[in-house]
């Protein structure tokens, strides 16, 4: 009986010690693993952000290069051509048509160049650039209204302003392509939350919220999301119960 007593007491103590050891090990190991997993997620997120930034920077650099080429090279050639046409005798056959074609081409080149690189944004800020963007849409049969508050936005970094501008550009493109809207309003303001851009329309609300088989990567939604991530902001899309969609982009101020 004595032996059994010893076996039971020692064995029970050993088993309890083992059980408590397992529990402590689980707690410590889980905490370490969780911390490691968090670190991996953080690194992954950072890498993703770096990739997006690199992708957007490359794209913007290429667009800037094309815009400059268009402006400096083709733009200059068209100006020379217009000058030459201006010196030609207007009574000659086709000179008038040639002049008009050259003017149209010059305007097109300017417009494309401006779309690729908004010069107003280079010189002023997002506030004026959005106004300019809306002014350039006069020929489109949609009534665009742009409002902004009295704040100055030039303190924002240029690449952030450019990203915000591109987001609005993509949203307007989507509205023109899919929404069948008659009125579009764009509002830029600054609040406690940060800088807020609201684009709302009275369209059919049929803009897909994500790339689908029907619209595979054609909506620029990926671009919008990448740019929102790039500026560290958020995007919210709300459908009006009757008609239209309201998109709110918020760029928090650090």
């Amino acid at each position, binding site marked *: 009986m004595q032996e059994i007593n010893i076996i039971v007491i020692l064995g029970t103590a050993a088993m*309890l010690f083992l059980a408590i050891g397992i529990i402590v090990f689980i707690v410590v190991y889980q905490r370490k693993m969780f911390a490691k997993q968090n670190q991996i997620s953080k690194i992954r997120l950072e890498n993703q952000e770096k990739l997006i930034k690199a992708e957007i920077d490359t794209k913007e650099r290429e667009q800037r290069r094309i815009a400059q080429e268009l402006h400096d090279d083709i733009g200059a050639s068209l100006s020379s051509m217009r000058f030459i046409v201006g010196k030609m005798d207007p009574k000659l056959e086709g000179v008038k048509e040639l002049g008009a074609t050259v003017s149209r081409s010059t305007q097109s080149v300017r417009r494309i160049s401006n779309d690729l690189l908004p010069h107003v944004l280079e010189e002023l800020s997002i506030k004026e650039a959005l106004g300019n963007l809306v002014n350039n849409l006069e020929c489109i049969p949609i009534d665009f209204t742009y409002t902004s508050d009295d704040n100055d936005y030039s303190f924002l970094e240029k690449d952030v302003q450019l990203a915000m501008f591109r987001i609005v550009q993509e949203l307007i493109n989507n509205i023109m392509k899919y929404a069948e809207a008659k009125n579009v309003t764009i509002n830029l303001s600054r609040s406690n939350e940060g800088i807020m851009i609201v684009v709302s329309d009275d369209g059919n609300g049929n803009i897909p919220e994500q790339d689908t088989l029907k619209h595979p990567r054609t909506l620029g939604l990926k671009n919008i999301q990448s740019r929102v991530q790039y500026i560290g902001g958020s995007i919210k899309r709300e459908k009006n119960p009757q008609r239209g969609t309201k998109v709110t982009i918020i760029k928090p101020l650090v």
Partner: protein
Amino acid sequence: MFSIIPSALVGGIVYKRLNRSLKILFWFILVSIVWDAMSYYCYLRQLSNMALLNLYPLVQFGFIALIYFFISEKKYWKISILIMSLILYLFSVYTIVIMDDIMIFNSLQRYVEGIIVITICIGYYVQILRQAEYMYLEKTPFFWLTSGYLVYFSGTLLLFLFARLIFENDPGGYHWNIRQFLQIGLNMIYVVTFWLGCKKLTS
């Protein structure tokens, strides 16, 4: 016997906020109280309560298996619990009906139950380690419950294995104090489990 009352009270108060597995735990505690009361009644009337003692592990394991069956997310682990339950019940029937008598303390059945519950506890730990869902495990009710079961069944494993010898030589000895002590600890863990179970879990 009375140490289980606080856990039943806490479980009853927060019952509506408990999930399915913790509700099963609450019912298990109520059944345990009734079982203990019946055992005590038999003892007072000087009747043998051995049949109740031998049947209790089957009821106890049934509830524990149900709790872990519902909290396990992996299908293979659910099937493993079912297979282990089947093994224990077949083994119990064999030991009670064929090998022994229901009026003799069935130590082997308790021993096998202990080993299976310890296996289930370790399996649960493996699952939570793989999921790595919570940084602070001590804030999760099932971690406490599992730890309680692991300690209780590890501590009573050898006691039950040698139970017959102990019964024969030292029926009122200190060995059963160890079990009582572990039981009180487990009952306190039930209170913690219910308390944490009624809160919303966050990582």
